[in-house]
């Protein structure tokens, strides 16, 4: 049953998000260099970290799917990647807004993390046409798992290569993300990270619940020998 615990999870997410927003706007101090614009960092960076972890989680589910052959792992893998791609859209848009506010351009090639993320996003964006192009559902699930594993191996290699390609002269603009953050900023950042992480988990669970319900409906329909309405997703794996 995928719906169990969904309500508690949602409440926890709302509380976490509210706390995080409060901290961002009423507690965290102003950054000396970037001023108020730095507040975007509490949204953009957690979104990117959670999205990347989500892709890795999708790869892990894919491994489980290949090893056990159980279809539900494929669904978990698909939903994880799907949610991370959606979060990825948010990462790129908030990243562009931050770039415009900081540098005056909607895109900068100087920020290696943003560039790496764009490449990762482009990689996972091909997941959908890839699944769509394989007709046999069982093969589609297997191949999608292979894709998820290959892409999962690709992510760290990509970040490494892009980072190394940056001219050594350019300091990391989000360098404050790890080192040198004052305690209050770090706390705010961690709470935001936790909130976005909870949001991802809640939405994935929500999506799986919806898929499961839809699967049960199909089952009921089959048991009643009722005519199917036709259609149904070609790429989203079923959960039953």
């Amino acid at each position, binding site marked *: 049953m995928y719906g169990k615990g969904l309500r508690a999870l949602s409440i926890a997410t709302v509380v976490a998000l509210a706390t995080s927003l409060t901290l961002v706007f009423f507690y965290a101090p102003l950054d000396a260099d970037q*001023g108020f614009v730095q507040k975007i960092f509490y949204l953009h960076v957690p979104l990117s970290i959670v999205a990347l972890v989500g892709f890795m989680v999708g790869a892990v589910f894919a491994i489980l799917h290949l090893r056990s052959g159980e279809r539900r792992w494929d669904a978990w893998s698909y939903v994880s990647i799907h949610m991370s791609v959606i979060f990825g859209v948010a990462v790129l848009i908030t990243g562009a807004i931050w770039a415009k506010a900081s540098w005056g351009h909607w895109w900068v090639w100087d920020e290696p993390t943003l560039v790496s993320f764009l490449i990762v996003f482009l990689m996972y964006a091909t997941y959908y046409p890839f699944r769509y192009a394989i007709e046999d559902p069982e093969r589609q699930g297997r191949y999608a798992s292979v894709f998820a594993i290959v892409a999962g191996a690709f992510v760290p290699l990509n970040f490494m290569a892009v980072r190394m390609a940056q001219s050594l002269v350019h300091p990391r603009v989000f360098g404050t993300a790890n080192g040198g953050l004052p305690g209050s900023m770090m706390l705010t950042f961690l709470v935001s990270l936790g909130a976005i992480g909870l949001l991802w988990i809640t939405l994935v669970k929500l999506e799986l619940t*919806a898929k499961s319900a839809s699967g049960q409906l199909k089952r009921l329909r089959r048991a009643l020998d009722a005519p199917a309405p036709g259609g149904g997703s070609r790429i989203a794996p079923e959960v039953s």
Partner: protein
Amino acid sequence: MHALLAGAPALPLGEAGKYVAGAYLVFMVLLVIYVAIMAAKLQRMERDLKDLAAIAEERKAEPEREGVGT
């Protein structure tokens, strides 16, 4: 707090505020779009369930009308 914000360098607050608000707004909008899509799925499921319930009730009524045995 106003004194704190008033001391902000870089972009003047009015401008900076717009960008920050824009970023958080994009996030909210994406979230709401997702909820809307989920709501549409739920509506469709409700409709399907209603149809199936009707079919099941019909089936239940039939043997009672036609008597015992098929």
